[in-house]
């Protein structure tokens, strides 16, 4: 099947359109939030929060409430727990992250296994974008708009707390508040990404496009747009492969993002491998 067939299928099948809209939105918001995650050196935290959403999803099913509420609750509780453990003991932050997110995740797996079939667990863990329901799509769009609006409104604060948190704190900005704002957005983005890439791989969508953009520009504003663009491309191309060759949607999307990263890692005009080798050679010859 060719790309033309894919486009034809897009016009034909309603479910495919919904998948496309949803995965594009996920690509954008993951790309945008991801920039702040990697610049703050919080990649592991991104991984942690996305996993910590699982017990919340399970509890929500159990109580019959919208799984957003549960997901945000356990995601934030885990973020608070990590902060509490690392601030109140000699345990380092990354160790605290390791302990708490695996516990939350383990709890989630047990809860889910009580409640639902293993195929549901599989979909939550790995995503199944081709099964997006209209309600999922609207929810993803709504989350996307909220997250983008928050980033737009707090851009200045996010920038200064990422770049120079000491100065931010010195002039009275609550770096802790901004941290938990970002953690809230992270849980929202994870929930929005459940259908497309799933819990396990959402961290790739947070980190890889942002890291790719980071190698392409020296300006945060451009990095954010590039990252969103790269996330979108990964989503669309990944969806194409997933639909055409019947592959796991999350895995396809992530591998496209990785391929883009590899290209940029080698060829980036500013920070690419080739550029580094060339300038190293120049230094040797002069």
């Amino acid at each position, binding site marked *: 099947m060719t790309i033309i067939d894919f486009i034809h299928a897009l016009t034909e099948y309603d479910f495919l359109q919904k998948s496309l809209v949803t995965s594009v939105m996920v690509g954008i918001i993951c790309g945008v939030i991801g920039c702040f995650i990697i610049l703050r050196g919080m990649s592991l935290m991104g991984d942690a929060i996305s996993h910590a959403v699982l017990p919340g999803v399970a509890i929500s099913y159990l109580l019959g409430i919208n799984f957003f509420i549960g997901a945000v609750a356990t995601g934030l509780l885990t973020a608070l727990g990590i902060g509490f453990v690392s601030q109140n003991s000699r345990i380092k932050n990354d160790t605290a992250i390791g302990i708490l997110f695996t516990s939350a995740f383990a709890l989630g797996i047990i809860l889910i296994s009580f409640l639902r079939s293993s195929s549901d667990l599989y979909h939550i863990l790995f995503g199944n974008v081709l099964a997006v329901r209209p309600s999922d799509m609207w929810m993803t769009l709504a989350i996307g708009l909220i997250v983008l609006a928050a980033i737009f409104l707090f851009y*200045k604060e996010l920038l*200064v707390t990422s770049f*120079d948190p000491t100065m931010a704190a010195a*002039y*009275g900005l609550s770096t802790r508040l901004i941290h938990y704002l970002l953690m809230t957005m992270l849980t929202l983005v994870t929930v929005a990404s459940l259908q497309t890439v799933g819990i396990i791989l959402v961290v790739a969508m947070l980190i890889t496009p942002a890291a790719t953009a980071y190698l392409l520009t020296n300006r945060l504003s451009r990095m954010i747009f590039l990252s969103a663009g790269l996330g979108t491309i990964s989503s669309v191309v990944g969806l194409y492969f997933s639909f055409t060759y019947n592959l796991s949607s999350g895995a396809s999307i992530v591998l496209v993002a990785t391929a883009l990263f590899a290209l940029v890692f080698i060829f980036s005009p500013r920070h690419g491998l080739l550029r580094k080798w060339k300038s190293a050679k120049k230094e040797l010859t002069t």
Partner: protein
Amino acid sequence: MLHAVEVDQLSVSYFETTALERLSVRLTSGQLIGIIGPNGAGKSTFIKAIMGLIPAEATSIRLLGQSAKQARTQVAYVPQRSAIDWDFPIRVIDAVLIGCYPQLGLFKRPTKQHRMRARACLDRVGMLDYADRQIGELSGGQQQRVFLARALAQEADLLLLDEPFVGVDAGSEGVIIDLLRVLRDEGKTILVVHHDLSKAADYFDTLLLLNRRIISVGPPQDVLHADLIEAAYGNPLAFLQKVEVSS
């Protein structure tokens, strides 16, 4: 006489170790003040404590005649170079523009006027030609000047600089100290954490010699005495050796 910094009974401890112990000091405004002392004496801790960045106990901390909390937008801080991620995707001009943030409220964006102010501040430190560079592309001295420009953009009356001359070439060091003197003459109070004793007498109007508590405070000729240096460093030659090396 107005005091830029008034601290009473300031103590800071990290877990079981005491970093600063019942420290009281008054520093006159409009001066260039050096904070000196051996490694681990609590110099940076002192600065961070008066800014309210770390938990501290004190009977009172007043900056510029106000409570530390009220004064905080009028206090500019220039961090140690090692505290900054120099690969951060930010241009020189945008880093300076951050100096305007404390005056902007939530949700407010820097305007054209703020950008003009940032450019003017960059010009004052002689770095306007580098406005569009990424901050990591500059030398150590240039980076320090950019952060000084940021402090200028903040239009603060009290400037706190943490080891501004570390990893800075002699030329930039001269530019920075000249600029600090100009700012002092404009009436600003400048506190500099400094470890090179040999130049301390040259650079500062007042020295604050610390080692967990205040060993001495006053004009350099009074503070740089062998017995006081010994009390702080445990070695009277700490000062003499450094002077010999530099002369």
